[in-house]
């Protein structure tokens, strides 16, 4: 057990300062404003700058292959959060690039990976379908053999970042008659292929995602990842990573659960509320001297800290659930002005608590809903058995 400050060597300390200064110079107010206006959670200029400095490659590669050492990796993660580097598209890119490295032909790897490291190539996820839900194996988007290539038809929801990406990691159905886990084939589809239409959707937290339509999209067989009908094998590892079912790091140099980045938004909201209620009003009174304010702030902080402590898949549910639980209390204790969003005159916490209130529904569905994870805990941790569902029913509408 160890929660101490990490002792840094001189060169690691230099690295920390370099990274902090560099990120501060890159993520300017304009970048933040662009992010807010577009909801992209991506900025090409910043992304290319990270690539040019070699940071993307070092983050992606293990230490043995020239990537960051453990301690530098941790510094890098924390400093990116400190600087509010837009993060979503690099997250999907890094994840998909692992599948390309693992399952792509050498030709495809050569086409894709160098651009991933320079920042010119970005990758997004084509998993969920408009009529599907968390069960991504239920896939209606079809890929059909056509000579040397394939023809794809269908549509995908939540292809976040597609408009800033060059390829989509697409789940297709190549055998509608097979059991669903044996019917899937994965492709890395170039997004400039004719027949692809990207439509933006803004979500309530201010982000932008996309619905992507595929109409007679022709792709070469070289863009297939893994075996035909062997898509589940390709998907399993990135899904495990996304679900957060990973072991704790024994050196304490990693988040204890996935979604800790989002947990940070919640911590920010608590800290900003605490700062606000400590200020004196014109009569010299502090809001925190009101027991009802102190109580709600304290209870929220307690629940936050419990969620930040929960490991692995438990932490993932705890963070999303706690965000839902405490955001209303944090807003209440700040009063009416808590309804004012970021950069608004008089916003007491710069919109931090109203943001997590709007963000909480998102964090509880992406990468699988809270119910999916509770099912997993029930089935695999407690051994309660596979959930019992009612018999299949024909859809009414």
């Amino acid at each position, binding site marked *: 057990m160890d929660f101490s400050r990490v002792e840094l060597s001189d060169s690691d300390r230099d690295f920390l300062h370099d990274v902090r200064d560099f990120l501060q110079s890159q993520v300017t107010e304009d970048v933040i404003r662009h992010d807010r206006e577009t909801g992209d959670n991506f900025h090409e200029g910043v992304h290319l700058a990270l690539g040019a400095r070699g940071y993307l490659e070092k983050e992606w590669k293990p230490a043995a292959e020239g990537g960051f050492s453990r301690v530098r990796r941790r510094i890098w993660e924390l400093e990116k959060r400190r600087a509010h580097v837009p993060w979503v598209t690099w997250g999907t890119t890094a994840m998909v690039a692992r599948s390309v490295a693992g399952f792509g032909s050498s030709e495809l790897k050569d086409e894709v990976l160098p651009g991933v490291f320079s920042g010119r190539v970005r990758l997004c996820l084509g998993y969920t379908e408009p009529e599907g839900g968390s069960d991504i194996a239920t896939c209606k988007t079809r890929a059909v053999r056509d000579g040397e290539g394939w023809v794809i038809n269908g549509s995908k929801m939540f292809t976040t970042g597609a408009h800033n990406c060059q390829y989509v990691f697409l789940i297709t159905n190549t055998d509608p008659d097979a059991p669903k886990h044996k019917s899937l084939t994965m492709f890395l589809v170039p997004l400039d292929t004719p027949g692809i239409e990207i439509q933006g959707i803004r979500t309530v937290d201010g982000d932008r995602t996309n619905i992507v339509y595929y109409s007679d999209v022709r792709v070469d067989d070289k863009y297939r990842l893994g075996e035909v009908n062997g898509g589940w094998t390709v998907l399993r590892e990135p899904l495990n990573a996304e679900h957060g079912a990973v072991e704790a790091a024994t050196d304490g140099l990693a988040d204890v659960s996935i979604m800790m980045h989002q947990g940070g938004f919640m911590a920010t909201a608590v800290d900003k509320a605490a700062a606000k209620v400590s200020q004196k009003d014109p009569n010299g009174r502090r809001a925190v001297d009101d027991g009802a304010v102190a109580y709600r702030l304290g209870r929220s902080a307690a629940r936050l800290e419990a969620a930040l402590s929960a490991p692995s898949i438990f932490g993932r549910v705890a963070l999303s659930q706690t965000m839902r639980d405490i955001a209303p209390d944090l807003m209440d204790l700040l009063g009416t002005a808590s309804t004012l969003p970021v950069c608004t005159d008089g916003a007491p916490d710069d919109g931090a608590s109203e943001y997590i209130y709007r963000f909480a529904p998102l964090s509880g569905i992406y990468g699988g809903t809270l119910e999916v994870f509770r*099912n997993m805990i029930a089935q695999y941790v407690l051994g309660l058995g596979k959930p019992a569902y009612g018999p299949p029913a024909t859809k009414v509408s």
Partner: protein
Amino acid sequence: MDRYELRRLDYSLTDDHTDLQNAYRQFFKSYCPIDTVRAAEASGFDKSLWERLCAMGATTMALPESVGGDGATLVDLTLVAEEIGRSLAPVPWIDHVCAARLLARLGALDSADIVDGTSLVALDPQEDAGAGRRLIPTGSISDHVVVRDGDDVVRLSFGTRPVKVDNIGKLPMAWVDPATADSRTVVASGPAALVEYQRALDEWRLLTAAALVGLVEETMTIAAEFAKTRYTLGVPISTLQAISHPLANMVITIEGGRNLARRAAWFCDNEPDERPELTPSAFVFMAEEASKAATMAVHIQGGLGVSAEAAATAYLVRARGWALAGGDPAASAKRIGRILAERESA
């Protein structure tokens, strides 16, 4: 606070930790089955279990070497407390060690009998020091009672021990009126003494939080096992999400509460001024969650769960009683709020 500070996040236990944990788990498994818990309900105290526990070194471990103890860390103590909660052991260990540690810090632990648990010390664990008659969780079985009185920390003793009152937590609780004590010794006075008293209150909350983690884990486990073997309409009720998801939530509570208590303990042991809000946070979280979880655990077992003989009900009542023994948990929540406000305005 710098939420991006580079610190380790290592919750792992050492081999020594797991040995300690296993030793106490085994001890309570052997000597404190649910029948023993039930048998001690009238007095709230099982003297022979306590003597065995002390013989194992459970009180001496908690005290500094300067007074003849073994100088265990608070992290170590949370491991023991968790096993006490798991087994619902009717022993005043948390109160005794918090009070004895306080006396040791104040230079007033002068009795080997206190170190080895032969002589019991009670603590007034209320966050807001009141005046007059008060409920002391282990007041009916203790030889000394340590309380705050204004700027003084005072040790009281009574010729006749205060009478145990029935209470939902089945604690050896008694009304104690400092004014009627047969002897009253001022142990220490002034701000420094009160700081040490506050530390005792924090330690009491920390160990109570850890005990509630063990309590929730055991009642959850019993409920989960029941659900696997109980069928409705041809399926085990454990496969119904209305049952399985609340059980999953209990596991999440346990995992978060346990790690939070350990992290809080680590900071108390190593950097006590750095995160003073964590100890009350562990307590506020577990105090609220324990009774919700214990109620759901009873509910899952339906008509069998509500029986006074069911283990689930033994957990149900203590989940409330133990959390409330130190007063309204809101006092701790407000304290967290004030600590944070202070920190974030600096």
